[in-house]
């Protein structure tokens, strides 16, 4: 039993690492960290919706996070507030409504599991979600890669070359929503953002091109997943935080590497 358990955990973790890596690059390039974090917070309302309606929690999260993104786009048009304030209001509002909903309806919910993830208890259904959703995310990112990279460098430059900026912005939002929906229960509300930001930031220290940054990001995320899962399995550490600590160690090493490189090359 132990072996199946760990194989499932590793395959879920690997899947998420591989999807979160290129997504994380765009989060870092386009400063979407706060957006990802807010989506993750709002996902708790989605989980509540999934539980209440009896639908799958993944679908609940997908619905709520999509509504979240639409609401955000609409409120941004009004331009009386900065995006970060709007995001904060939406995120904490929906998080709180979710928690109240869950407690009112008397569900016995493992809140800690949703905050920090529960990678050792993944089931096959989760893995199917991860790999199908992940394939879609990766395909769309790779298909639109150059347009997205140019848009991340400068939006007006991309506009002059007929890149459909609005469509790509919506696409990125949708892909983030999908990513949160498929990974939230495995890595948790608080940890999904670190999976997006930390490996990409470490990769930035060593990479010289957008593609190599995406590849380094994947490698770092995979290493952290291995350490996290084994730490949880064999030393009984909490899995999610172990992944994050591994990521932070990798980040520190990457900083040391880049300062050495600057000194000697």
């Amino acid at each position, binding site marked *: 039993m132990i072996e199946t358990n760990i194989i499932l955990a590793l395959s879920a973790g690997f899947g998420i690492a591989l999807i979160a890596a290129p997504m994380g690059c765009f989060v*870092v*390039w386009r400063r979407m960290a706060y957006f990802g974090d807010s989506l993750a917070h709002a996902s708790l309302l989605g989980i509540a919706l999934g539980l209440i309606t009896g639908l799958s929690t993944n679908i609940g999260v997908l619905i709520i996070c999509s509504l979240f993104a639409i609401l955000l786009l609409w409120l941004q048009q009004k331009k009386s507030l900065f995006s970060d304030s709007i995001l904060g209001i939406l995120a904490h509002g929906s998080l709180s409504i979710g928690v109240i909903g869950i407690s009112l309806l008397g569900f016995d919910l493992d809140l800690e599991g949703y905050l920090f993830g529960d990678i050792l208890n993944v089931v096959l259904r989760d893995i199917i979600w991860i790999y199908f959703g992940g394939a879609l995310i990766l395909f769309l990112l790779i298909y639109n890669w*150059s347009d997205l*990279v140019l848009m991340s*460098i400068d939006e007006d430059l991309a506009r002059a070359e007929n890149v459909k900026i609005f469509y790509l912005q919506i696409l990125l939002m949708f892909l983030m929503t999908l990513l949160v929906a498929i990974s939230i229960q495995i890595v948790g509300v608080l940890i999904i953002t670190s999976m997006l930001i930390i490996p990409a*930031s470490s990769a*930035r220290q060593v*990479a010289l091109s957008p593609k190599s940054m995406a590849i380094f990001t994947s490698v770092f995320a995979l290493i952290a997943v291995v350490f996290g899962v084994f730490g949880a399995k064999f030393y009984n550490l909490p899995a999610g935080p172990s992944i994050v600590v591994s990521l932070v160690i990798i980040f520190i090493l990457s900083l040391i590497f880049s300062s050495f490189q600057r000194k000697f090359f």
Partner: protein
Amino acid sequence: MINILFKEAKMSQLIKANNVSFIKEKNVILKNISLEILDNDFITIIGPNGAGKSMLLKCLMGFYKTTKGDVFIKKDLKIGYVPQKFAPSISMPINVKSFLFLRKKSNQTILNELTREINITHILNKQLSKLSGGELQRVLLVRALIDEPEILVLDEPVLNLDISAQLAFYKLLEHIYKTRKISILMVSHDLHMVMSISKKVICLFHHICCSGTPAKVAKDPNFSALFGDDMAKMMAVYQHSHNHSHVHKNDVDNCKCDGDCDND
């Protein structure tokens, strides 16, 4: 309503604006702008801060829907654009060469010629985020020219350069204009150098105050109303004698001022 219509422009017309207005949150940014950009044109838009110059460029390239009027863009017009504020994100690792070829179809021969002409050969392997203002501007210019566009659009290209680099950049631009079949549309702030190289100057303050050859604009009362008499006198020194015989249609009929030109 679609304001950007393709194919309708005449053969030699690249872009044509027909009575275009742009209103954003009740502020009139552009008012009744009509102009045309032809083959091998060199048009400079001048005007004070906040006159709507950048917005006019963006409307002419079809970035935004206009509130009123139409913009006609020649079908499949290839535009090379050098934006105003370009500060590539420090979180993006990309070297100059990859940036030049990102989404651009071109070949090594053209690249070699351009990098020599515009003098960026030595920085091709440098990271984009580590370039100086002048280097960045030259890289943008190469990128704009690399797939041989029909029109080059520049938005205050010398804004962050020191005075000698500004002169060098305008010289380069003049050379580019003279050595290939290209139209140039440029927004500028500083008048002296612009005047000597442009074929036509459009003086903008939300509407077109006056337009025509540099010599004609410098003498226009609307020009001195907008920039002050001193500036107008200074211009007279800087302009060189244009002996071009071709006169654009719009030169004649746009020199009416609506009365709000005496705004600072």
